[in-house]
């Protein structure tokens, strides 16, 4: 029977049928999308739970002492996470101190200042830099950059910055070229592409209208950037910064090559240290005892915790900023 010949009844027309079908498709589509998002959540929770479970022997054995013990003695089975946590946080901090201003400069240059013919080549170069595997950065750091620092930079740093009372303690020690400062700088170079390409993308979204109005009122480029571009894109910019920070905290190979992998706690940035990811990479294959292996997995769990705490603090700061602005 042809639909056109039948008397029109509600629920039976083409239009109504289509409505039902569309609603069903919409529902399926929503479930599919939700499954995609939940997959991420499940992976995250699964990884956190399994590292916590794998590290339970270490947590049971050492308790909270695991967090602030300096020991790392595989022979006598005494492990503590303080040195790796310290090394991870310090190298990431050095990296952020360098990478954030430089990335900000790159992104501003590319969106506001650079002549048109320069924008695409530099932007592609940055994206290319982001694609270089970290082991290449590690080898470059070890064979090229570390000797350069040891020969030319660190002796100067020793003599000049090391002499300053107070801060000087950060810059004393033998100029080996290997250590937290080198690792931090290599990390900075690695994360600059991430942060700057996010910044560039979001700076491009600022409506030209707003910027032109500010220029018309006689603003300098800096005033436009500081008062118009940055407030407009702030949360996305901070998101980009934390993407870089997350990478700096978790980076393994490049850091392992230039950090020195020494289980020592020292104030000086020129001294070798250790990071969570590189301890795991270094020792996991030859960890014979259950306690040693468990302690390494527990370190993995702590990396989750450290990253989570850092991101949570950042989110809180953002919220507070937004509230103050709203008031």
């Amino acid at each position, binding site marked *: 029977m042809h639909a056109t010949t039948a008397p029109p009844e509600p629920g039976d027309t083409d239009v109504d049928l289509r409505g039902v079908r569309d609603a069903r498709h919409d529902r399926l589509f929503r479930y599919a999308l939700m499954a995609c998002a939940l997959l991420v959540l499940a992976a995250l929770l699964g990884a956190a739970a399994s590292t916590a479970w794998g590290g339970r022997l270490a947590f049971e054995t050492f308790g909270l002492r695991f967090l602030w013990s300096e*020991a*790392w*003695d*595989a*022979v*006598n089975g005494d492990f503590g996470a303080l040195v790796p946590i310290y090394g991870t946080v310090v190298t990431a901090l050095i990296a952020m101190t360098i990478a954030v201003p430089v990335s900000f400069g790159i992104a501003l240059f590319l969106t506001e200042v650079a002549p048109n013919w320069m924008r695409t080549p530099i932007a592609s170069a940055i994206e290319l830099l982001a694609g270089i595997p970290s082991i290449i950065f590690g080898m470059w750091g*070890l*064979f090229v950059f*570390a*000797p350069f620092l*040891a020969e030319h930079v660190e002796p100067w740093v020793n003599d000049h910055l090391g002499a300053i009372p107070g801060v000087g303690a950060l810059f004393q020690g*033998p100029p*080996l*070229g*290997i250590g937290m400062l080198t690792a931090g700088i290599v990390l900075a170079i690695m994360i600059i592409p991430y942060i700057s390409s996010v910044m560039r993308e979001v700076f491009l979204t600022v409506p030209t209208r707003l910027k032109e109005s500010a220029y018309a009122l006689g603003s300098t480029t800096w005033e436009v950037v500081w008062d118009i571009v940055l407030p407009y894109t702030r949360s996305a910019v901070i998101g980009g910064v934390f993407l870089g920070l997350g990478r700096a905290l978790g980076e393994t190979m490049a850091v*392992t*090559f230039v950090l*020195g*992998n*020494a*289980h020592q706690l020292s104030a000086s940035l020129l001294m*070798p240290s*250790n990071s969570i990811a*590189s301890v795991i*990479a*270094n*020792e*996991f*294959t*030859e*960890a*014979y005892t259950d306690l040693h*292996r468990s302690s390494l997995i527990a370190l993995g769990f702590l990396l989750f915790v450290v990253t989570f705490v850092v991101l949570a603090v950042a989110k809180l700061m953002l919220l507070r900023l937004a509230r103050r602005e709203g008031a």
Partner: protein
Amino acid sequence: MFKTIAIRVAVTAAVLFGAASAHATDITGAGSSFVYPVLSKWSATYAEKTGNRINYQSIGSGGGIAQIKAATVDFGASDAPLSAEDLAKFGLGQFPVVVGGIVPVINVEGVKAGQLKLTGEVLADIYLGKITKWNDPALAGLNPGVALPAKAITVVHRSDGSGTSYNFTNYLSKVSPEWKAKVGFGTSVPWPTGLGGKGNEGVSAYVSQIKNSIGYVEYAYALQNKMTYTQMQNAAGNYLEPNAKAFAAAAATADWAGAKDFNLIMTNAPGADAWPITATTWAIMYKQAKNAEHAKAAFDFFKWSFENGQQQAASLDYVALPKELVDRIENYWKTEFKQ
């Protein structure tokens, strides 16, 4: 263009699969990365000769032990021997596969390879952080005529757990009571001082770059990177340069007769010409084979390697096991393993 590539792929695939189907047995092994180069070279030649392939995963000794205990591989390989209890508990047996040397390397201006003399005690004191300058009286006393600078020593060790560190620290424990008490030995130990380089390549890179440093690497790395190795005093009191002859002498004079299941670390071997830091890797297999055909193929492979693999081992700067030790191992197979 596309067609030729497609044909090539098809041909390659046909060759590969054809070859695979012709194989009698594929043996699997896992463990130590120390033996990986020589095992893969041996297995390539062995596969050409017999069609039996050896698929060896160099996942580290710890992994190798775990895999053989779980019986997922036909043999495990470890840089540290298993204890008698562990072997008995799992019904496993072990035997050495190949010998290699570990050498101290230094980077001191004006000092040439083989020029500096070290004793075990002095080496231990350097790694303990007790001897901190190159012109320390202990070092200068051993080396009259060598101009040693008044510079601080930078100690370099392995950052990753490794059989190289295991044997090096085992040697230091044997020659220095203080090292034994404070540090002990193992694949990774709580180093009292110094920098950690990842892998032999990491240590050799650090030592090459950092002036006035000292490290330890497998002999092959010292040779390939033209590093300044040192002489060592051995247990008999003689100073030796590291070379294949000295490693072989250590393997030959170590007290294998008194070592049940070859549970013997041959550092500080007694021979007059024995290099003091000589290492081996053990293959670990079930005494009651889980898969008789695979076990037999594995034994055949090791027998072939012991009898025909010396040249290839030497080309990679390993030393093949001395004849007497091979006889001892083959006897061990007969008495301990059910074949």
